[in-house]
């Protein structure tokens, strides 16, 4: 399995600001994904981070709000833009070695927006 490190692990942010979360994997992986977990809820897929091209977003998520980069096979970033209290969530980076298989998760980045 690939070990995933996320930064920051937690942050408190002001309304209207933006925050970029970094995800580093310790080995090359084929696919990386970003999930959101709102308080007390399950995980919702935000987007698939594609290496060298634009991310593929799920319904309800748009690039202007959640721009994603993946410059290489081991690194991705998710920005939460123009934050509001409704964006307070855990944001989780995950990766996969093969097409069909388990996802490995980082510990998540816990954002609180005031």
């Amino acid at each position: 399995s690939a070990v995933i490190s996320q930064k920051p692990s937690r942050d408190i942010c002001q309304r209207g600001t933006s925050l970029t979360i970094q995800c580093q994997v310790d080995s090359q992986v084929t696919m990386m994904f970003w999930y959101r977990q709102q308080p007390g809820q399950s995980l919702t897929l935000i987007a698939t981070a594609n290496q060298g091209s634009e991310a593929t977003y799920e319904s309800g998520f748009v690039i202007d709000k959640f721009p994603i980069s993946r410059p290489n096979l081991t690194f991705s970033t998710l920005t939460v833009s123009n934050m509001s209290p409704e964006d307070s969530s855990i944001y989780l980076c995950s990766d996969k070695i093969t097409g069909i298989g388990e996802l490995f998760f980082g510990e998540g980045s816990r954002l609180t927006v005031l």
Partner: protein
Amino acid sequence: GENVGLHLPTLSVQEGDNSIINCAYSNSASDYFIWYKQESGKGPQFIIDIRSNMDKRQGQRVTVLLNKTVKHLSLQIAATQPGDSAVYFCAENHFSGGYNKLIFGAGTRLAVHP
């Protein structure tokens, strides 16, 4: 903790009893399923998986059952221990838009009492 599982259904069991956690999935074309365990403050951890060409798979103290007729998945934990207390999520693999994506179910909180 971060209120993981605060709003989720709860299964309460006595230490030493067997636990059964159920999940209904949505897509009859899903071909791969995973159970994850999420402890407070951590990312989801893989427990066990099963492909759609199987109806049962066993691991150490855990068994996953798949009933494709009614789109139902269950996780059985034998001799439940306090360390099993966590939120459990099922996830199904969707192939959509050229990608394999894991879509998570609602989750169940397991509370183990001494």
